[in-house]
């Protein structure tokens, strides 16, 4: 297939989901983000730590909205975030004088390592990027970033996914653990 004809697409787009799927996605995401955000804004709002990062919103799409996706499974959710967080912190520490380079290296390497470790999780790319482009508060965390906010938030959201997605009659989560 030639370069330009590939751009035409030509395949069909998948069908839309039904109402119950939309409802369960909403409920799951609401219940999953609530405790993490509450932790951040209400419980520990006084300390210097951050408990919520933007990539959790992306994870919510997958683990509450596309439950069966390989990208949404626990191995990918937990592994992808942790692997990417570590890479993000390293990239910042090594290349912080050149933020453009640190950003690019962080995301690109995160994707590669997630592939290698079979933990590909799209929000992981954001987690790696945030380690570089985040606030001073994030930078000051150093490798603690991997534990708080990343691991804590991810585990809370996973527990909610295990509960909510298995209450729904039409859902089952996870498809696999490892």
């Amino acid at each position, binding site marked *: 297939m030639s370069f330009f004809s590939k751009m035409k697409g030509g*395949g069909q787009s*998948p*069908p839309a*989901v039904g109402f119950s799927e939309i409802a369960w996605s909403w409920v799951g995401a609401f219940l999953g983000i609530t405790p993490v955000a509450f932790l951040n804004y209400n419980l520990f709002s006084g300390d210097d730590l951050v408990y919520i990062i933007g990539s959790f919103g992306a994870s919510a799409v997958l683990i509450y909205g*596309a439950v069966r996706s*390989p*990208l*949404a499974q626990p191995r990918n959710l937990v592994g992808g975030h942790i692997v990417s967080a570590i890479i993000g912190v390293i990239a910042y520490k090594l290349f912080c004088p050149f933020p453009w380079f640190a950003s690019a290296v962080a995301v690109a390497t995160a994707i590669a390592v997630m592939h290698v470790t079979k933990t590909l999780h799209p929000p992981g790319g954001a987690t790696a990027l945030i380690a570089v482009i985040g606030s001073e508060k994030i930078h000051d965390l150093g490798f603690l970033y991997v534990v708080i906010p990343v691991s804590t938030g991810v585990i809370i959201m996973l527990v909610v996914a295990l509960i909510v997605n298995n209450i729904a009659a*039409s859902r089952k989560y996870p498809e696999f653990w490892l």
Partner: protein
Amino acid sequence: MKFSSLNECTLPISDEDIIQAMKQIPGYLDITPSDFMEVYLVAFDHAMSRLKTAITADQIMKTNVITVGENASLIEVVKKMADNNISGLPVVRNDQTVTGIISEKDFLKRMNDDHAPSFMRVVLQCLETTGCIAADFKKLVATDIMSSPCITILPQTPLIEIAGLMDQKAINRVPVIDDKLKLVGIIARSDIVQTMC
């Protein structure tokens, strides 16, 4: 239809079928219809090649083979074929090795000179001439009429190969021999049809 083209002819699934299935299955499937089609096609190929080699001659052959000896008279041969309602049988030596095969076609060949012998050719010849054209059969024995050497297969020959062989050589049955060349079974076209359905 060739067996090798089975893939194409048994592929009635369309993009519309996939979309309908995706609608029926609850939950969001994180694939495009063309993803599914690709997986399906490759998986189908795998299944086909597994099935093609999974079934071998020894699984479908008939082991109680009706045979005749090399010196059996043609009357004996014809009687055996008629009594057992079969259209062909292998000719074996005393040690059960196959020396040839006799089918209705061999009789037809003998009964007229045409290059493409058929039952109707024989009838035609009967009507045009006088006397029984099978008369000299009384003096003949199995080896006079049999096709030899004949095509044989081993017990581990896969089904797809047997079907291809029958198609290619235009034969209706093929004796199965073991590694000592002794007859162990026979496969007719009908055995293959039964296996496929």
